[in-house]
């Protein structure tokens, strides 16, 4: 098949690796005793996890009244955090599914960790709506099951129920996708282990042998799962945005929400992947597998989606003015200049202005800038959700019910606690499973490693010193 190829193919696996070295480098972090950095990080996240457990028990024991949410601002930190976490989860599926369909080879370096991140982020997200229900022991009422009350069914017309289906489908499909990809790598870990450790990995690798037919089916399964995960991931945040867009609240009732939420989700998700990858590659010494080229590619996605989000913000403002509808105009006037102006400013600065720095190649390829800006973006995306939810509700139709919202220590505890939960899960994951997809990295070694000797290889390009033009070329 003839297709355009890049004049220079960037090296994605550095250090002239052999297949065995790849195994060695990627499995050994699970075999060594934990490093000091890991122990410190793990203890810290365990502390926050305990805080989470404490504040959740407190909430269930005393009731939702312990939160700052009130009758006017009935969705506050909880739903903000829910949308924030769900958005973070989106990058994992994007990297593993959409980039697989686009045949982007750089995905192999980061897909495993990003998929794991998706699963943990969705777990964190799920905590908020579940505990916001109040009587959490009745949480199973959200599922349609035959019951003795009629049976009385759930409301299939409600976007909140669509959310239940979207999030639970998303979670379980991501889990299948991630685990099926992990099985061959767990077999690699198994075959290096002995004794009890081998027994454990034997169980978890399901008896994988690497037979040709199994690989063929495995690839077929991965491709179809990628194909169906792509519309799934787009649907999930679309449906999350329906929670707002199908209401009749000015500022929420807009058709721009689905694409704007999806772009924002990818934006925040990539920022979180960057935060994790910059740390992971350093701590586990994986700089040769998660290279600067990977980081640069992700930064390009961040500047693209950040700009899309910026356009969406400006479109919202323009349409509010252009609609001539006073309630809509007020909603946006209030967002920009009202009581929560600082949240709007934070959102605009962190999400729209700060990622523009990534137009500079130097900043895109700088570890420190990447790490710093990934944190800034995550703060910005949190502000975005708070602006949409908190600011809008605080100034509704009826001035007599206008209110202000402050989080209580319980809410702060739950939120920071879920960050602890997230890192707790992630740190366990990096200890028990290879954090980079071993089999997939091996399969691209000859075309994307230092060994690549095609006409657009970096070494050849550097040697000839002349510019190769972009041209269609046969690729096998």
């Amino acid at each position, binding site marked *: 098949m003839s297709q355009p190829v890049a004049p220079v193919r960037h090296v994605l696996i550095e250090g002239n690796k*052999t*297949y*065995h070295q790849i*195994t060695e480098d990627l499995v050994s972090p699970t075999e060594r005793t934990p490093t000091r950095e890991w122990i410190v990080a793990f203890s810290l996240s365990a502390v926050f996890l305990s805080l989470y457990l404490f504040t959740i028990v407190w909430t269930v024991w005393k009731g939702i009244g312990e939160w700052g949410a009130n009758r006017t601002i009935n969705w506050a930190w909880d739903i903000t955090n829910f949308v924030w976490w769900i958005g973070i989860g989106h990058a994992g599926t994007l990297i593993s599914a959409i980039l697989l369909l686009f045949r982007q080879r750089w995905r192999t370096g980061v897909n495993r960790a990003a998929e794991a991140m998706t699963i943990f982020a969705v777990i964190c997200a799920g905590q908020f709506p579940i505990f916001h229900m109040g009587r959490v022991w009745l949480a199973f009422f959200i599922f*349609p099951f035959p019951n003795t009350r*009629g*049976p*009385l*069914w759930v*409301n*299939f*017309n*409600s*976007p909140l129920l*669509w959310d239940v*289906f*979207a999030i639970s*489908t998303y979670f*379980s*499909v991501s889990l*299948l996708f991630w685990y*099926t990809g992990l099985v*061959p790598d767990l*077999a*690699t870990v*198994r*075959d*290096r282990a002995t004794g009890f450790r081998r027994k454990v990995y*034997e*169980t978890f*690798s*399901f*008896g*994988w*042998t*690497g*037979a*040709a*037919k*199994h*690989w*063929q*089916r*495995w*690839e*077929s*399964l991965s*491709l*179809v*799962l990628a194909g*169906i*995960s792509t*519309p*799934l991931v787009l*649907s999930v945040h679309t449906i999350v945005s*329906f929670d707002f867009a199908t209401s009749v609240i000015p500022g929420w009732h807009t058709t721009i929400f689905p694409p704007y939420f999806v772009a924002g989700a990818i934006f925040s998700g990539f920022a979180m992947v960057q935060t994790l990858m910059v740390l992971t590659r350093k701590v586990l010494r994986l700089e040769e597998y998660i290279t600067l080229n990977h980081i640069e590619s992700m930064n390009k996605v961040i500047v693209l989606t950040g700009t899309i989000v910026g356009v969406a913000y400006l479109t919202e403002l323009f349409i509010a003015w252009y609609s001539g509808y006073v309630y809509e105009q007020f909603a946006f006037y209030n967002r920009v200049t009202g009581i929560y102006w600082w949240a709007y400013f934070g959102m605009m600065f962190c999400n729209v202005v700060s990622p523009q720095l990534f137009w500079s190649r130097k900043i895109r390829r700088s570890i420190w800038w990447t790490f710093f800006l990934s944190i800034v973006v995550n703060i910005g995306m949190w502000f975005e959700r708070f602006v949409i939810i908190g600011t809008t509700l605080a100034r509704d139709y009826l001035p007599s019910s206008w209110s202000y919202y402050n989080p209580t220590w319980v809410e702060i505890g739950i939120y920071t606690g879920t960050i602890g939960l997230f890192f707790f899960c992630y740190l366990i994951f990096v200890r028990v499973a290879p954090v980079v997809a071993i*089999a*997939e990295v*091996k*399969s691209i070694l000859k075309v994307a490693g230092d060994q690549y000797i095609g006409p657009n290889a970096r070494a050849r390009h550097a040697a000839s010193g002349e510019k190769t033009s972009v041209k269609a070329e046969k690729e096998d």
Partner: protein
Amino acid sequence: MAEKSRKVLFGLYNDEEDLKTAVKTAMKDHLDIMDVYSPFPVHGLDPILGLKESRLHILGFVYGSIGAMFGFLFMTWVFTTDWPIVFGGKPFWSVPAFIPITFEMTILFAAWGMTLTFYTICGMWPGVSTKTLDNRITDDKFCIAFDVTGSNDQDNLNRFFKQTGAAEVNLKTVNW
């Protein structure tokens, strides 16, 4: 399936290109390959080995269709027959509102159906005994295996391995 003891003669290669060449030779010589194992999917191996394309994706479509039908018909039954309720003055059978859940059920059924089918037809579950010929097959070795139970003609195969540049040739008795 009753376990029986089998003798397996297998050669290990260092590179996927060597493996492909060797499999090509074996197919030309009409050697009866038991299986080929590799640490990662070797592209271009399937046609040489004569493996037909997997039909798993067709099943994915079937499972997805079942999911879509199930989701849509269930909501239809609940809202038109079992317990019709008016929501916001809309018709009982409000099809557009059923689209998101129908879609999610399609994906859910397709993904779970395909994955469970994959593990079942590959004979993979937690607790199955691992059929490992050599620990390095999941690391950096590419393996061609022949079932030589009750056969005395191993010279032919040994010659084949030598000719195609196998790094190692081993004989192993397994209980598969």
